[in-house]
């Protein structure tokens, strides 16, 4: 289990509580002390998490124990049928696609998955899709459009993969085509940024009617490390870059780029993944129900108008 620096005090109290609980059978007087400690732990969590800086939030968004796309799919989607391959080159495990139900609502799922253990991470290429991943996503989008199935995308990627094969097979073209196709869909499209929204690699599956973000997720034009190495030729100044980039869910909500922040359990989604999954499910259903009231033409129009409106400039 990975413990971030600022999480340490919480883990220490937590450990003490667990120890005391073990001794509880012998001494019932401990009950009060445990209650006290639990209250203190809650207060401490609240205090620490209220004052996190942007770099600490980046670390939470990338936390290795944070629930991933597979966890959300497992927790939210019934009768999930995974579909594979772009019908052109290969199946890209960085992007999971498939069909299923959330409660009684049909959905098509497109989700970036980083992988959990080392072997799976390598297989999934750490959640960095190749062009064929985006082409697989496009295949599922067309399928969804054809059979009037709403599209749900889950974003969690450091970025589209920078490699020789990726360039040879047209990484830029695949991302551009995916953005274009998403704009044209005539079904509800909802995106949830569940962890890391890494630049074009995230955007390629994030052109939605409604864009949600988990409280400790990030979404940025460039990674803080990449930004720092361009600005100061020093990637270790990533924490300063994170501040400059204003990349947290709160920042994005303030800018109007995302529509809603989905709450995480105290301390972040990794403290209680079930709560995070349930919260996202509730938010998705709420927006899905309201989008289903729009006509296919209105859905497309709303999406086009929304993304046409982004930008800050002066006109003199």
């Amino acid at each position: 289990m990975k413990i971030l620096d600022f999480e340490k005090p919480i883990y220490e109290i937590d450990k003490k509580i667990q120890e005391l609980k073990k001794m509880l059978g012998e001494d019932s007087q401990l009950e009060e002390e445990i209650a006290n400690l639990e209250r203190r732990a809650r207060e401490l969590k609240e205090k620490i998490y209220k004052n996190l800086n942007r770099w600490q939030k980046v670390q939470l968004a990338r936390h290795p124990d944070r629930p991933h796309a597979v966890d959300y799919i497992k927790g939210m989607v019934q009768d999930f049928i995974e579909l594979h391959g772009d019908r052109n080159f290969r199946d890209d495990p960085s992007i999971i696609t498939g069909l299923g139900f959330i409660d009684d609502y049909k959905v098509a799922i497109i989700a970036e998955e980083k992988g959990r253990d080392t072997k799976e991470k390598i297989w999934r290429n750490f959640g960095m899709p190749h062009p064929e991943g985006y082409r697989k996503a496009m295949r599922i989008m067309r399928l969804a459009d054809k059979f009037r199935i709403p599209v749900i995308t889950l974003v969690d990627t450091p970025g589209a993969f920078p490699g020789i094969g990726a360039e040879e097979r047209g990484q830029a073209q695949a991302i551009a085509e995916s953005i274009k196709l998403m704009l044209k869909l005539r079904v509800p499209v909802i995106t949830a940024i569940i962890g890391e929204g890494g630049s074009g690699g995230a955007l390629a599956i994030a052109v939605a009617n409604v864009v949600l973000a988990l409280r400790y997720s990030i979404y940025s034009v460039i990674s803080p490390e990449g930004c720092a190495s361009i600005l100061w030729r020093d990637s270790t100044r990533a924490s300063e870059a994170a501040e400059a980039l204003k990349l947290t869910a709160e920042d994005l909500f303030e800018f109007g780029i995302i529509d809603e922040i989905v709450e995480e359990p105290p301390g972040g989604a990794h403290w209680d993944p079930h709560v995070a999954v349930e919260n996202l499910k509730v938010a998705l259903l709420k927006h899905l129900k309201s989008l289903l009231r729009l006509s296919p033409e209105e859905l497309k129009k709303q999406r086009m108008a929304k993304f046409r409106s982004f930008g800050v400039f002066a006109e003199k």
Partner: protein
Amino acid sequence: MLFRKRKKIEGEKKDIPEGLFLKCEKCGELFYKNQLEKNLWVCPKCGFHFRVGVDFYKKILFDDGDFIKHFAADLESQDPLDFPGYKEKLDRAKAKTGLKEAAVSGLARINGREVVFFLTDFRFLGGSMGSVYGEIFYRAAQEAIKRNIPFISLTSSGGGARMHEGIFSLMQMVKTTVAVVEMEEKGIPFISVLTDPTMGGVMASFASLGDIIIAEPGALLGFAGPRVIQQTIKQDLPTGFQRSEFLLEKGFVDMVVPRKELKSVLSKLLDILGGENGRSQTG
């Protein structure tokens, strides 16, 4: 955002004093500056295409040497993130180039045919795409739709989306694509001309979505910058990787067209895509 510009920026007047020799970046041969200029900044020996700014392209491509009418010329970049050093960088870029932004657009004539032209200049913050760039593109597309005439973009964008405007820059990838979709729905021909370099978010949005995609010889074109790829995979990159000819071979551009022939190729394409049933009478 992933590509760092090369040290030398070509075509920058103050760096090239009158009458001085200039060395070709590729073959190392020395030429008189005016000799190169006469050859459209293409090396007479090896065919290397030097980077040139928007004014030069206007001069060699447009019948009138400039726009007949400018579009969205009043837009000015803001600093929505209060990003360290951005305002100063904008001021320096404006002073250096005489441009207000990395992108310009307007109405132009190519062999008598009216088109909307959108151009970007590498000398202005690497030709990167921020809010103003995206808005200029969008409005230019609207002009093409309104006038029912073809749309041509010519890009030189090293970093793609402009880091200093953060998430707003990323969103311009979608905004420019909204413009492409709207043109498509109205049957407006869209030709994308890629010059050195066109990378990142620009290449991963409208620049890759032209009905026809043309590249200048030897231009660096792709998603991730070569340095980033090298650092990631820890291997040497193959010769010619991410150059125009490589993209032609892999099937991502329609043709590689030398600068000297660009106007005549565009003109022929416009005759076919944008013309009436027969050959244009004006050209």
